[in-house]
C-alpha cells in the first residue's frame, strides 16, 4: 500500500471552488457589493490602500470582498495588481499645508490658526454597542459652522514652531530622486525616505506595537502630537512633454507631526525634533505609530544610544511588511519532507550513538571532538 500525501490538480481546483463557495456564505443572505464595502467599511479600505501602496478605493474594496475580509490577503491582492501597473513617474510633492481639512487637532497648543477641528472621530464616543444599527438607521446630519475669516488657512504646527527656531527645520530639498523600495532593494543603512515608505507600507499592528514600545522605555523619544490632520490634498504631475504641473485629482491623507524633546549637542542648541507619519485616507493610529517609529529610527543620526528594537532599522524594516512576514511564516505549511528526512536520519543516528554509549557503562566517555 502506498498512500502519497501529494495534492493533484483536481484537489487544488476543488479547494478553490470550496473557497469561493465559503466566501459567498449563505446564498439566502444578499451578496455584498463593492460599493457597500467602499462606503461602509471605509477605514478598512483605507488601511488596505495604505499597506497596499496603491490609492484605489474600488480595487481595495474588491480585494477585501475576494479576501473574505482578511486584511493581509487583501493587501496581497492589491500589491500583486500594483506590480503589473506601468510606472509613469512621480507626482509633485503634495502640500499638506494647503490641505482641505476634515479634521485637525493639536495636543501641543490649545488653539492655533485654523483652530482645532474634531471632524469624524471615535475619540469621544462611548464604546457602547449601538443595537439600533442592527436594523439600519439614517444618521442625523451634523451641523456645519459658518466659515470664519481665516477659513481655509490652516498652517502646519511645524511651520509655526519652525519660525521661532524651536523646531528642527525640514531637511532642505535635495532635488535627488527619492528611493522606491518597490523598485529597488533596500540598501542598509536606508535613508529616511525609504524608511518612511517601509513604515507606511508596514503592518499596522507591528508598527503600532513598536511605537508603543518606545513609550514604555524601549527607546524613549518624549513625544507630543504637534498635529494630526486628515483631509484632501491636490495631486499634481509634470508630464515631460508639457513641462508644467497639471492636476490629477485629490487624495485623502492623514498626516501626523510628532514633536520630540531633544537636549541639543555641542553644535546644535536644544530644540524639538520630529517624527513623521503619512497614510492614505483616515488612519490616525497608523500615522501616529509611524511617526513614533520614524523618530526612534533617527536615534543614531541624533547621537542617541541605539539599543531598543524600535531604534534598529534592520530589525524594523526587515520585519514590518505583513506580506513578507505572512509569506514566510505560512510557507511552513509547504512540504518539507526532504529536510525533515535529513533531520530524522541525524536524530536516529545520534540516538543510536547515545544508546550505544549508555549500554557500555565500563567504557569511559570519548572526547566529543574526536
Amino acid at each position, binding site marked *: 500500500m502506498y498512500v502519497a500525501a501529494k495534492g493533484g490538480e483536481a484537489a487544488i481546483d476543488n479547494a478553490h471552488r470550496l473557497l469561493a463557495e465559503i466566501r459567498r456564505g449563505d446564498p439566502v443572505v444578499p451578496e455584498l457589493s463593492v460599493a457597500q464595502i467602499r462606503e461602509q467599511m471605509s477605514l478598512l479600505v483605507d488601511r488596505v490602500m495604505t499597506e497596499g501602496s496603491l490609492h484605489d478605493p474600488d480595487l481595495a474594496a474588491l480585494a477585501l470582498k475576494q479576501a473574505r475580509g482578511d486584511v493581509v490577503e487583501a493587501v496581497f491582492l492589491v500589491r500583486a495588481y500594483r506590480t503589473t501597473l506601468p510606472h509613469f513617474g512621480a507626482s509633485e510633492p503634495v502640500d499638506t499645508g494647503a490641505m482641505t481639512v476634515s479634521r485637525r487637532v493639536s495636543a501641543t497648543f490649545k488653539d492655533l490658526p485654523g483652530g482645532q477641528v474634531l471632524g469624524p472621530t471615535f475619540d469621544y464616543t462611548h464604546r457602547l454597542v449601538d443595537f439600533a444599527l442592527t436594523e439600519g438607521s439614517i444618521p442625523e446630519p451634523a451641523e456645519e459652522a459658518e466659515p470664519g475669516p481665516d477659513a481655509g488657512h490652516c498652517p502646519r504646527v511645524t511651520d509655526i514652531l519652525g519660525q521661532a527656531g524651536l523646531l528642527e527645520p525640514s531637511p532642505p530639498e535635495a532635488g535627488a530622486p527619492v528611493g522606491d523600495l518597490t523598485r529597488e*532593494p533596500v540598501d*542598509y543603512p536606508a535613508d529616511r525616505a525609504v524608511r518612511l515608505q517601509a513604515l507606511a507600507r508596514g503592518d499596522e499592528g507591528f508598527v503600532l506595537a513598536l511605537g508603543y514600545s518606545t513609550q514604555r522605555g524601549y527607546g524613549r523619544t518624549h513625544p507630543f502630537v504637534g498635529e494630526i490632520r486628515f483631509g484632501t490634498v491636490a495631486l499634481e504631475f509634470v508630464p515631460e512633454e508639457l513641462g508644467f504641473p497639471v492636476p490629477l485629482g485629490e487624495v485623502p491623507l492623514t498626516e501626523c507631526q510628532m514633536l520630540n524633546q531633544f537636549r541639543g549637542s555641542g553644535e546644535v542648541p536644544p530644540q524639538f525634533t520630529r517624527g513623521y507619519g503619512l497614510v492614505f485616507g483616515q488612519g490616525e493610529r497608523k500615522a501616529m505609530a509611524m511617526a513614533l517609529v520614524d523618530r526612534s529610527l533617527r536615534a543614531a543620526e541624533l547621537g542617541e544610544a541605539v539599543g531598543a528594537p524600535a531604534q534598529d532599522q*534592520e530589525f524594523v524594516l526587515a520585519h514590518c511588511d505583513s506580506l513578507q512576514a505572512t509569506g514566510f511564516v505560512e510557507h511552513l505549511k509547504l512540504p518539507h519532507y*526532504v529536510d525533515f528526512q535529513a533531520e530524522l536520519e*541525524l536524530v536516529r543516528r545520534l540516538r543510536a550513538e547515545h544508546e550505544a554509549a549508555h549500554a557500555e557503562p565500563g567504557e569511559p566517555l570519548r572526547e566529543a571532538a574526536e
Partner: protein
Amino acid sequence: MSAPLPEQGYNFAYLDEGTKRMIRRAILKAIAIPGYQVPFASREMPMPYGWGTGGVQVTAAVLGRSDVLKVIDQGADDTTNAVSIRRFFGRTAGVATTTRTTEATVIQTRHRIPETPLREGQILVYQVPIPEPLRFLEPRETETRQLHALAEYGLIHVKLYEDIARHGHIATTYAYPVEVAGRYVMDPSPTPKFDNPKMDDCPALQLFGAGREKRIYAVPPYTRVRSLDFEDHPFRVQRFDRPCALCGAEGVYLDEVVLDDRGGRMFVCSDTDHCEGRRAEGFTGEQAA
C-alpha cells in the same frame, strides 16, 4: 511576434519587459561573480513570499517561448506548490511543461536537485528562503556584507566545529554551506546535503532567486562547489540503508512514508520522475504494486 497569450492583460511570463531586463542584469552579474549575492528589485508577485517568488521571477526572466519547463518541490512534480507554479507559467507564458528531467530546458526547484544528471544548456532555478549563509550567525546585513567582502568565514567554521564538539560530527543536514569557485561561501538553499555534490562541476547553469530577501546568485556551468568541512571530519552525505521500495534505486534520496500507526514505513524515491522512469524501464522494488 505577438502570439495570443493564454492569460489576457499580462505580458509573456507575467513580468513586464523592463522588470525582466533588470532581473537579467542581476543574473548576469551573479554569473560573473559566482556565489556572490546580487541585490535586485524583487517585485511583488501573485504568490506569497516564501512560496518561491524569487525562483518564479528568475524563471520568468530566463524563459523563452521555445523553453520546456519542469517544476519540482521536494523532488516531486505533483506536490501542490509545484503544480501551482507550473500552472502559473502555463497560463502566463503558454510554454510547454514536462515532468521529465531530460526533456526540460528550465527546471525550477524547491529543496532538491534531480537525480538524473543535468546537461549543458539546462538551467536549474532554485527557490531560496534565506540566501545569506551567515544569517543565523550574524543577523545584520551590514555585518555579513563586510564578512563576505573580507572573505572572513571564521564564524561558519566555528559553528561547524561546535557541532563536532557537541555531537561528534557536523549536525547540519540541509542548507549545508558551500564555497563557490574558491571565493564566496554560499547557501545552496535548503536542499539536503545529499545533493551538494551534484552542484560541483555541473554542466548546467544554476541560478538562485530569493524574492523576499531580494537577492539573486549563481553557479555558472563547470564551477567548483566545495562543501565546507575539516581534514579530520570530511564532508559526507546521507546514506539510506535500503533501496527505493517502488523502483529499487540505490544511492538516491528517499522519502519516508508512514503506512500505518504500528510503525509501518516505506522508503520511496523523493525524485518522482527518476522513480517513474526506472519503473518504466522495468526496475521494481519490494513494494511495487
